[in-house]
């Protein structure tokens, strides 16, 4: 067999896999809607400077707590109204998408990387390595996640970067556990033994032979963690421990809006709605991913 023919069949297999994946994913209507909303969020975040009508931190001192345009006293240049210091709500919400997506990506990347390495080590080597790693993971899981994140932020100091690190540390045991379980299931299979007999070293066995076959549950968990990261970072922001003002992070916006809840409903309603819609979209996507990637649910 020539080299090129192998390459062609590889990409054909990949195309088939993508096609099959999309077939199962698109069966789930909610998942497709979630995916569309998610793409919209990504677009908003990327093109925020082009879309947002105002600078998110510019304070229009003559326009404090202006209601949305459809309400009496609203002004057409501030579609969703302004906050207590005269910043345009719509622009802040659009820029807020950048924060949420950035937080989700960074948190999941750190947690995924750490969890995969620890889980691979624990599952592959077993014995005391496994015991030590998994006991440490148990300890992290024993704390309610938000509480541990709060305490970590207290140690590291409030701020967006530290909040992301704290949330990533709290989430990473889930990835470690999943990876470990998957690795232990795969380790004894023939293809791994074959690779070992063929002379593959430990690193190659772990990362090139076993890991690609454990990815499905990790992808589903990554999606769920993405939405939880958006929620938890907003909660930290709300408690004053996450992104700091004047950042237009949605949780931080809510914290600033709290004292106006009975006077200006819009400063409270919109940031929360933005959080809810993003988290909901990602969770819908996660449900679809699980259906598409979990072979047990495939009925063909």
């Amino acid at each position: 067999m020539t080299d090129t023919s192998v390459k062609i069949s590889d990409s054909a297999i990949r195309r088939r896999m993508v096609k099959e994946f999309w077939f199962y994913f698109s069966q789930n209507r909610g998942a497709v809607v979630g995916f569309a909303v998610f793409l919209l969020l990504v677009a908003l975040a990327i093109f925020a400077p082009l879309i947002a009508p105002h600078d998110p931190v510019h304070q229009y001192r003559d326009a404090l707590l202006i209601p949305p345009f459809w309400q009496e006293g609203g002004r057409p240049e501030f579609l969703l109204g302004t906050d207590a210091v005269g910043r345009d709500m719509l622009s802040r919400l659009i820029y807020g998408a950048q924060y949420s997506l950035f937080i989700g990506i960074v948190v999941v990347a750190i947690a995924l990387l750490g969890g995969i390495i620890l889980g691979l080590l624990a599952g592959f080597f077993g014995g005391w390595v496994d015991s030590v790693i998994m006991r440490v993971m148990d300890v992290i899981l024993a704390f309610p996640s938000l509480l541990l994140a709060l305490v970590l932020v207290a140690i590291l100091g409030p701020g967006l970067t530290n909040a992301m690190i704290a949330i990533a540390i709290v989430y990473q045991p889930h990835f470690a556990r999943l990876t470990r379980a998957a690795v232990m299931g795969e380790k004894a299979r023939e293809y791994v033994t074959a690779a070992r007999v063929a002379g593959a070293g430990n690193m190659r066995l772990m990362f090139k032979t076993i890991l690609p076959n454990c990815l499905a549950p990790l992808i589903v968990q990554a999606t769920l963690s993405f939405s939880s990261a958006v929620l938890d970072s907003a909660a930290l922001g709300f408690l004053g421990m996450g992104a700091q003002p004047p950042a237009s992070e949605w949780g931080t916006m809510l914290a600033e809006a709290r004292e106006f809840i009975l006077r200006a409903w819009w400063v409270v309603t919109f940031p929360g709605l933005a959080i809810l819609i993003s988290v909901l979209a990602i969770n819908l996507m996660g449900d679809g991913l699980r259906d598409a990637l979990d072979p047990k649910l495939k009925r063909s």
Partner: protein
Amino acid sequence: MLRFILSKLLYLIPTMLGITLVAFSFIRLLPGDPVLLMAGERGVSPERYAEISAQLGYDKPLWQQYFTYLGDLMHGDLGHSIVTKKPVLAEFLALFPATVELAIVAIIIATVIGVPVGVIAAIKRGSWFDQISMTGALIGFSMPIFWWGLLLIIFFSGILQWTPVSGRISLMYFFPQVTGFMLIDSLISGQKGAFGSALSHLILPSIVLATIPLAVIARQTRSAMLEVMGEDYVRTAKAKGLSLGRVIGVHALRNAMIPVITTIGLQIGVLMAGAILTETIFSWPGIGKWMIDSISRRDYPVVQSGLLLIAGIVMIVNLLVDLTYGLINPRIRHK
């Protein structure tokens, strides 16, 4: 059964020690000098510094400090608050009933609504009820509860003026704490209107706290029921000509409940995290708000011991859930 319990307990010991190690490291990992942190904001003279340092044992090697710490814990000494100077354990015990009351009412709401909704959604799979309730469950599951709480305050306290905004009971009522549960204490006190006041204070926070567990329980019940309904023994029961109620109530539900009970138990950790946010929004005087206040007041001994106590409680509840699971499912016990 005894062996099952003992093995579970043994398994917990390393985790328990790990938790104490985390709590122990907490104060030592904080930026800045722990003695100065403990001494408070005003600073200390060198003599006083040496005195506090010796008193807290910071002049000894770390491993020795850890064992002293463990010894103190064994004696129930969890340190003193810097701000109030009271023992941390006493403060915790005074505030804990408020959180427990909130959590119990929340878990009751979540279970009483979540389980039937999940069962009906599973039986009428694909119906409008199934679709609406599962969409609702997914929204609940995705809800930023701190925002949800604010919305409820705007609507029920602001617009309708049905419920108070914060606290556990109206200041008009005053009676001694007997159980620490405001609902029960207000009944015991016999004061007219006290129970109603306590109830109206409790209703919004408990709904907020119940939201995520309710969504999780409804989803879990539905999928557990769907799985069980496909089993052979349910088909046999149907084939025998049993009524639908009997098939579901006696054969399906009892088996479907096993994973659901675990799910309900595992919500305790979720409730603890939720209590931090819920209590902050509603100024509910429980341990969640206490922890947040202590973090922002830099009352580190309280944070340290609060962390330990909350993790310990979550662990014990999870252990109880595990044991119940073994009790109702012999397959686990005899593994």
